[in-house]
């Protein structure tokens, strides 16, 4: 039998080596996978995507911008551009680089896969929001056309990725702009921001400074030829009509109060009841479907019944059934008309 001290040190050594290889994200295996991202084809595809992105945003892409976006040095970027040029995917112009028709269609295909994957990760898995992009970056390079179509079909041919960007169709077309101009929204009407135009940049900067972003719920409370006053996230925002014209919104059919109230099921004390207004957009996929299947839909009255020993989860009476929800979920459900009337 070996000396126990020797065996112990070997054992600890083996454990350390295993951790070094297997550790999530920083272990050898994880780094090996990341290494694949530096493969030649992957770099080419990322460069095309970068060019497309800049073209979409009306910026001019250069060797430097490619090198910066891909995290490679100038020489590598030059070699990459030359390669793409000989393949007929990009053209050099006087000041910048441009995509050829073939290059644009290639780029759109990758963008499509990327956004589909983000959609899939957001809806069907539990991968956290910051990881969507990273995961999609990895997977977008390893999908055949057939697999892409299968994924799209499985997701019900979604129109937008979870960030609100349109997903290019399989023919490489992007949907036209949606929504109407915020400037044309009637007084007192509420709407969801779907797009914020980033040109010209001075107006865009103003909008960013006012904290207007896609997904924000707004309501016009005052409208004149000089200014538009909005209510959003509990604050009043004043915009010039020319600025408001650069924001696209989709008006709501009904008045929505969740923007003002921000009260959720999680705020209910045992014995209190409230009516559901809606489920937060951040709650997606399986989680959202489950809540709706339980009967948490706009208009349902819910009573908080009792807290568990640890205070979380809390049991609610929903559609005459007693269902326990965790606080994290209850905070997704916007409610109004909270009352302590014990009509349990």
């Amino acid at each position, binding site marked *: 039998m070996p000396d126990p*001290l020797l065996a*112990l040190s070997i*054992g600890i050594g083996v454990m350390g080596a295993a951790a070094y290889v297997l550790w999530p994200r920083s272990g050898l295996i994880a780094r090996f996978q990341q290494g694949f991202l530096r493969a030649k084809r992957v770099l080419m595809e990322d460069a095309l995507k970068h060019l497309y992105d800049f073209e979409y945003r009306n910026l001019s892409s250069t060797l430097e911008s490619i090198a910066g976006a891909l995290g490679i040095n100038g020489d590598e970027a030059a070699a990459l551009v030359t390669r793409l040029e000989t393949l007929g995917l990009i053209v050099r112009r006087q000041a910048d680089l441009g995509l050829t028709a073939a290059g644009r269609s290639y780029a759109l295909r990758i963008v499509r896969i990327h956004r589909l994957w983000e959609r899939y990760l957001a809806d069907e898995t539990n991968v956290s929001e910051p990881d969507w992009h990273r995961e999609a970056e990895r997977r977008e390079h390893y999908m055949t056309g057939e697999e892409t179509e299968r994924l799209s079909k499985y997701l019900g041919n979604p129109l937008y990725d979870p960030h609100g960007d349109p997903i290019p169709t399989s023919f490489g077309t992007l949907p036209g702009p949606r929504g109407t101009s915020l400037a044309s929204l009637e007084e007192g009407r509420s709407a969801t921001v779907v797009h914020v135009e980033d040109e010209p940049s001075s107006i865009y900067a103003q909008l960013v400074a006012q904290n207007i972003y896609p997904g924000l719920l707004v309501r016009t409370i005052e409208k004149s030829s000089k200014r538009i006053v909005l209510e959003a996230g509990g604050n009043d925002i004043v915009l010039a009509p020319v600025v408001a014209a650069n924001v696209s919104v989709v008006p709501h059919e009904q008045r929505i109060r969740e923007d003002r109230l921000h009260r959720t099921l999680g705020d209910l004390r045992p014995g209190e009841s409230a009516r559901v207004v809606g489920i937060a957009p951040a709650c997606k996929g399986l*989680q959202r479907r489950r809540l709706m299947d339980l009967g948490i839909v706009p208009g349902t009255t819910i009573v908080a019944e009792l807290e568990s020993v640890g205070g*979380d989860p809390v049991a609610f009476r929903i*559609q005459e059934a007693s*269902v*326990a929800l965790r606080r994290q979920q209850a905070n997704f459900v916007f409610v109004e008309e909270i009352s302590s009337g014990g009509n349990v």
Partner: protein
Amino acid sequence: MNGRSDTPNKSILAVANALRWEIGEGLHDSVTADLYREAERIAGVVTARSGKGQRLDLDRILDRILTSRAFGFPTMFLLLALVFWLTIEGANVPSALLSTLLVDQGHPFLKSLSAAFGVPWWVSGPLVDGTYLAMAWVVSVMLPPMAIFFPLFTLLEDFGYLPRVAFNLDFLFRKAGAHGKQALTMAMGYGCNAAGIVSTRIIDSPRERLIAILTNNFALCNGRWPTQILIASIFIGVLAPPYLAGAVSALAVVAVVLLGIAFTFLVSWMLSRTILRGTASTFSLELPPYRPPRILHTLYTSLIDRTLIVLWRAVVWAAPAGLVIWLVSNISIGGVSLAAHVVQSLDPLGLLIGLNGIILLAYVIAIPANEIVIPTLLMLTVLFHGIADVGTGAGVLFELDSPAAVADLLHAGGWTLLTGINLMLFSLLHNPCSTTLYTIYRETGSVKWTLLSALIPLVIGFTVCFFVAQVWRIVVGV
């Protein structure tokens, strides 16, 4: 019908696409909301209600007590302790009865019967000594506790108490990335891991269900309790003065159970943060109204659905195991039995991790059923160390009347206190039995998860035993 009906009409597709943009993404939400409105309307019309529900008030009072800070946990511990006590105490008598009937009398009867008919030893050996005896063993050890534990458990479930346990314990499981209902599947696992795996169906979130399946084996099943109790009383109880021996060995078993719970949480936590990080997850827990348990119905369903199915599978798996046990002990290569060859090659590894080759071999051939580990160990020890006057022949399982006799035999086999402790650890931390593995495969439909559920506890078991052995040898010196 015109001739172009088989090609999609472009303009229709264009209209459909345009409409899709118009409808937008909240379609599912509004459809669901409308369905509920309509269902409520219909229910409002056709449902007759009779005054105020008395039972509902009783429910609320019960819920207030059972989920209160003061009484929630004490009630739970008391009820679970009662269930375990009833199981262990109540199973003793029928177990002894079955053992007498099937093993002490049935086995010699079958032997003499086959002798009377002139059946050659190489037929009666594998069939009667191997297959029959292993099956009889499993039945007598397994059936009584399961026939008591499962109905009791089902009664609590039927009454509506178990969902409240999950409700109260959820905050612990949430921290480990698991579901509160895992408390119930774990408790079921203390009866039988295969039944515990089946019971994970109550967890409807994919990720949490896989976590519950992969960690169920850390709940010490009924087939492993006797091993723990026996080894604890032989090796640990004797360290204490006689009047404390019982309490000390009971404490040792409880420590192993607690270690299992600790590993359940640890492994759940690790799984939810590594390989299962991205799996879809949701939480909801229905708290059904309390109702008087239907005792006869419960007895019937728990006996049929849980006890008999699990027992049948165990018997099906135990039969070939018995055959293998007999064969490895009786087939000789170069004058040495197959078992001896294997034990010799496993010995260095076994001794390194504070066990021995016999224990490892016993755990390999007892994969079908943990119940036969101890009899297999005893038989192999006798066979391998050539101890006379004990046992009834190569490949024939047996048990000794008193723990003291077992202790003498094991000490003669070279066992130390370290061997005993590590056997208790290894009994908790090793691959699930084949019945459980098969159930995992059936429930997950995946070879990957089945393999993983075997490898995780096995790797942990070897690692823990290894480190305990080395530290023990450095500190204690033996």
